[in-house]
Each structure stands twice: as C-alpha cells, then as structure tokens.
C-alpha cells in the first residue's frame, strides 16, 4: 500500500468558505423568476417587438439616427426607425480622399463614437435580440422546423476557415469606399457592402417596397453589383433555411462589433470552475461555437461569432456557470431549476 500524501497546511483562505451575498427576498424572487423564464418564448416576443419597431417605426415618425449597430436597413425608406451604421460609414469613407483629412474627417470619428455608444449598451445582444435580419433568419428556422426538415452543420475545420470571412468582408467594406474616394473604383460600387447585403432587398419588402429587386443596367459595374446582390439574397434565403443564423457567420457588422466589444456593458460570463463541460450550451448554439463548452479559463466568453442570444445560458444546468451581466450585475443566470423547467417544456413542445 502506498503512503498517502499528508495534508499540508496552506496559508490563505480555504475555498470552502466563500461568503454568499444574500439578496433581499423580493429581489431574489425576481431573480428566480427571470432565471426560470420560458426563455425561447421571451426571446421570440422581444425579437418580434424589435422587428416591428425597426421595420415599421418610421411610420410613427420614430427616428433613432443613422448609427445603429445592426441591420435597420436604410433602404427601407418608409418604415425604418433608424439606419444601420454601415451605410453612412461607407458613404463617409467614400468621399474624396483629401476630404478625409479635413474637418469632414471628424464626422467619421463622431459617427463611429455614436455607433460605439449604441453598441456598448447591448454588445452583440443587438444581433441576438434586435437585428431584423437576424430575427428573420430565426423565423426562417422556425419555418424549416415546422416543415420537419433538419438543419445542416459545419465541420470544425469548415468552421475554422469560414469564420474568417467576416473580417475579409469588413476589410473590403472599408477599403473599397476608400478606393472609390481615391478614384480607383467607380461610384457605382458605392456603398459596396449594402449593394450585396440581403437586408437591402429583403427588409423593404416588409413595407411593400420591391424596388430593390431590380438589376441596374446603367453601367457594367452597376449590373455586376446588383446581380451580385441578388445572388447573395438568394443564398441568404436558401442558406438560412438549412443553416441556423447562416448569414451572421459572415456579417462584417459582427466583426466590427467584436473589435470594440471589450468596452461593452452587457457581457456573457463563464465560471469555468462550475462547468462540467457537458456540452449542453454548445448543443443549442445556433452559431456552433465550441469554446462556450470547452473553454474553462476565459471569463469573458463571448467570441466573434456569438450573437449573444443567451440560449447557452438558458440551457446550462450548472448554477452560475454561465451568466449574462450588465455592468457586472447578473441579469440572467444559469440555474438548475431553470434548466429543468425549460427541458421539460422542450419535451412537451416537441410534438
């Protein structure tokens, strides 16, 4: 028999006596209610309201400016309640190069700051809860589900390659307008990303505006760009039918978000000590982010592909292992009771 290791006295506090902050009973009751919410239903209604607001809010004269950190498409002229920041950004960058270094260049800076201010409030939560194009993809997913068709997944190696595309698109989205301003490219390419973005064609449809479904035959470049736009839109519709959140994976806005996400107030936190790596969070992730289950050291667990939809939190059975925080205050936390309730709901809904 081997000698057993004698216990050594260790200075410092033992991990057993972690003080637990007691909440006021009312606050605790509220927190329990939130943590056990029927999450999918909550999110569905939240998204629906946000969709209506940003696609039809314009009719009620709502205008939240043109620096919004999600696809509230500017081409939806009648209904929009604000404009996606990518549209003015590309226009500003597309000005004659000399202008960029004058006072006009400052507007780019202030524009970016306004965008960043919007962004830091919800972080990528804009994608998971507000973005109309994101919501639309979730509805297409619901349609697929109701037709009894299974979804597709990437392999891990495909994932690793494809996840870089959004950065390429972001770089092009900045470089091409600069090229236009510098006279390298035709103005017919402006704004380059909007011309290929599916939101430009699809969102106006919701206000009965089909004008974007045309090929512009005025110049060769215009033909190429508008045809490309149509192809991407077709790809979007087919893609999001077979793949959950198909487009978000390639979204340059998502890439831009990630670059400034450190400063965000809304965060997805993970306590790796509490994680058993069961993989439940990964199983429900629309974006197939494996780190959410496997990474047990990173505290700030949001990755560049994340849409902060918080489905992972809702499906985590380990209390406190995953949580969404706002300015450090837990808003929505993984609990066992919540997990069990939602799982049983899943069983009864599965018919």
């Amino acid at each position: 028999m081997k000698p057993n290791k004698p216990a050594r006295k260790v200075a410092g506090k033992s991990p057993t006596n972690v003080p637990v902050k007691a909440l006021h009973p009312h606050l605790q009751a509220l927190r329990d209610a939130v943590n056990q919410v029927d999450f999918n239903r909550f999110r569905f209604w939240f998204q629906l309201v946000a969709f209506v607001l940003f696609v039809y809010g314009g009719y009620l004269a709502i205008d939240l400016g043109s620096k919004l950190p999600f696809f509230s498409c500017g081409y939806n002229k009648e209904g929009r309640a604000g404009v996606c920041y990518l549209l003015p950004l590309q226009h500003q960058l597309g000005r004659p190069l000399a202008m960029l270094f004058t006072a006009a260049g400052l507007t780019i800076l202030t524009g970016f700051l306004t965008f960043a201010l919007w962004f830091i409030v919800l972080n990528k939560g804009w994608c998971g809860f507000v973005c109309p194009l994101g919501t639309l993809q979730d509805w297409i997913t619901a349609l697929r589900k109701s037709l009894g068709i299974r979804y597709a997944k990437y392999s891990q190696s495909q994932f690793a390659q494809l996840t870089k595309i959004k950065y390429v698109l972001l770089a092009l989205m900045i470089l091409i307008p600069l090229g236009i301003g510098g006279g390298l490219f035709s103005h017919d390419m402006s704004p380059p990303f909007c011309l290929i973005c599916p939101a430009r064609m699809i969102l106006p449809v919701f206000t009965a505006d089909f004008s974007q479904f045309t090929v512009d035959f005025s110049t060769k470049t215009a033909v190429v760009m508008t045809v490309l736009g149509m192809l991407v839109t077709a790809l979007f519709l087919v893609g999001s039918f077979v793949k959950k959140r198909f487009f978000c994976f390639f979204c340059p806005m998502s890439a831009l978000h990630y670059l400034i996400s450190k400063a965000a107030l809304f965060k997805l936190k993970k306590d790796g000590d509490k994680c058993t790596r069961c993989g439940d969070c990964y199983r429900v992730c629309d974006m197939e982010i494996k780190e959410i289950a496997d990474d047990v050291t990173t505290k700030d667990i949001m990755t560049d592909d994340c849409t902060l939809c918080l489905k992972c939190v809702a499906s985590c059975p380990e209390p406190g292992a995953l949580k969404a925080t706002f300015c450090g205050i837990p808003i929505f936390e993984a609990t066992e009771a919540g997990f069990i309730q939602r799982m049983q709901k899943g069983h009864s809904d599965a018919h």
Partner: protein
Amino acid sequence: MHTKAHTVIPIQPVPYSRSRQAGESQTVLDQITKDFDDNPQAMQYFYDLFQKVYCQGEAVPHEGMLVGTTCIQAPEELIYAFGATPMRLCNGSYHYDQRGGDFMPAKSCSLVKATLGMLSAEHVIPNIGKPDLIVNPTTCDQKKKSSAMIEGLGYAVFDLEFPNVKESEASRVYWQRAVREFAQRLRTLTGKKLTRKNLRAAIAKIARAQVAFRKLHHFRQLSPSIILGKDAFLVTNAYFFDNIDSWTAAVEKLNEELAQREQDGIRAVQKKAPRVLFTGSPPIFPNLKLPLLIEESGGVVVADETCSSNRMLYDMTAVDEWWLNDMVDSLADKYLKPCTCPIFTKNDDRKRRLLELVNQFQADGVVYQAFAGCQVYEMEVKSVADAFNQAGIPMLYIETDYSPDDKGQMSTRIEAFLESLKAKKKRQA
C-alpha cells in the same frame, strides 16, 4: 436382507439465501441498516430491494430485451428507446471477485474480475436472467480484454468503441459514429425502429431519474448532513438493476422525507463530523467497505466523484431541435464530454470537478479509493493529490480490493485521517 445401508444421500443444493455470497450481502446490509440510528424511512424501499435481490436471490424483472452494460458510457436512453431494459453488470461481490481470478491475472481490478465471475456463474446474482446483449464500452484495458472472455462465456457482446482522448474533435466525431453503430446493433437485436417519439420518451424517462438524483445530491450539501453517504450509495447502486420508474418514485419519496427532515432540523450526524468527498474506484454493493468505515468512524461522505453514483446520473442532456440525429448526437456528447473517467489522456476535468465538489459540499477532506490493479486510478493519484495539496485540502489515498482482510488496518488509517480533519477544523474555527 437388503437394507438401505448403501443408499447415497444426495448432496442437497444449498438454497441461495444460505450461500456464502448471500451471507456477504447480508452482513453489509445489516451494517447499513442496523449500525446506524434514524435511517430515513423512505430508505426502507432500498433496504428491502437489496434484501430481496442480493440476500434472497429473487429474480429481477425487466421489460423487453435485456441489455447488460459494463460501464456508464453506454447510452441507456438508446436502450430504452428500443424497448429494451439496460442493466449495469459491474459487480461488487467478493465471492465473484475470487471466481473471476480464473480469467484475469491476480493483480487486476476486483470490479472487472467480479463482473467476469458473476457472468461465469450458473446462478447470477443479481438474478437478472441472461442478457440478450452485453454492451462493453472500450474504456480501460481490463474492460477491453474482458470483452472476448465474456463472449467466450456464451454471451453476445457489442464493443462500443470509446476514444482515449477526450478533447479532440476527431474523437468526438468517432464517438458519435460509435454511438450510431450501437443504435444500429440495437435495431438488429430488437427488430424495432428508433423513432423521434420513443427516443424522446427515453430521454425524458432518464431525465426524470436524473432530476430526482440531483435533488438528493443537493440535499447532501447541507451541513450538518441529513443523509449519510452509505444510503446515497445504496440508492445509486439500486439504479443499476431496479426498474427505473419505481426507482425514481422511491428517490422522489426519499427527497420529500429529506425536505421534511431539513425543516424539522433532524440531522444524521454530529455537528462536527468531518465531511468527506469520495473519489476513485466505484463502491458497488456489497463492497461498501470504505464508505461504511468512514461513517462508522464518525465521518460523513457528503459527495462522490465515482461512476457508481454521481458520474452515472449527474450530467443531463439538452437538445435544441428534437430531431432524431440531434438527439443521438446530444446523447453522444453527454456521454463523452463531461466524463471524468481516468482512462483519458488528460484529467484536468476530473481535477476541476473534484475541487468544485469540495467547494460546493464544504468537504473537509477527500478519500481516494483505488482498487488494487485498477491502473488508471492508481496512476492518477499523484496529479489529483497535487491538485488537492495546492488547494490545501487533505486527501487520504487507499488502495484496496474486495477482500475484507484489510478492514482492520484501513479503519486505523481512516480514524487517524478523520481525527486530523477534526483537528484542522478546530484550528480553523
């Protein structure tokens, strides 16, 4: 005159209840029930169950085909989905351990030997009847090698291919494929089809058992404890062969009683009883030697990290869309990703899990049991001891087997260990 002088008196077969093996079980069961006061009333279900099955040798009923499993990595949900009943064959009897010596080298794991010994016996205890199929996940070397031996004993065996590396994507995909092949095999065996409906029902059935288990598990966080570890082990041991629905109902009843006990302030131990986390080779009835020694010496086992209890029932399955493929993949992930079995190359997850359990259950110390010959658990001792050492948590390593011979010296060591935990507690207070 012819007399009956030469009549041979035939040897009467000894009834099972009077066999050495039944005696072994009876002794342990008596210890569990009679050496402790105030056992929860709801435990009676489990005491009776073990009395009937292990001490009297009563037959254990099952529905549909019987699929024996030699490890918790075999997805039970699939077996239920095909209308069959899974039963865990891992055995804890010393009698069978000795029998199993015919198959394995002397210095091999008691559990594997006992399982082989049991399968080679004429009248198997627990008396489950002959399994229509035995699924043997390819985990440790001894289990791997016993596969062919079990086949040699006339059983149909399916080797469920289990990877050695947990972290890689390649092994995840490999394992998913292995699970699908298992489903295929079950299909040929039962002649039934796997459907969304029956797999979902099977997942729900096990989830209900898991929810009950988790509740029991959480009651053990209370300090002072309201239930002893020997009872908790008996409950999870019963899961091996009991009808899952009756088992769940019995655990739910136990939970109700524990909730009442909590309210009434009834506790199962003295306030200062050292709280012990149990890890390593799994205690399986009747080999509850070590947990019983701990609790007879005034300690209490508050949690465990063993495949006969916590690891078997803790991690639950989540499914996003309830398609057949999704459910099967989710199951595969659940059976691989959180597994803390020592057969894997790395044991970071196990160490993390142990530290978290110590934290959650306010354990004062850890008892690490390794069956002599269970190389993987023996080999992990150093890394686990180092992790605990760093965290300032005392750990007692005990190498043992199913034989009762070492009980004396073990009890001395355990008493000394518990004393040191008490002294440490006092110093800290």
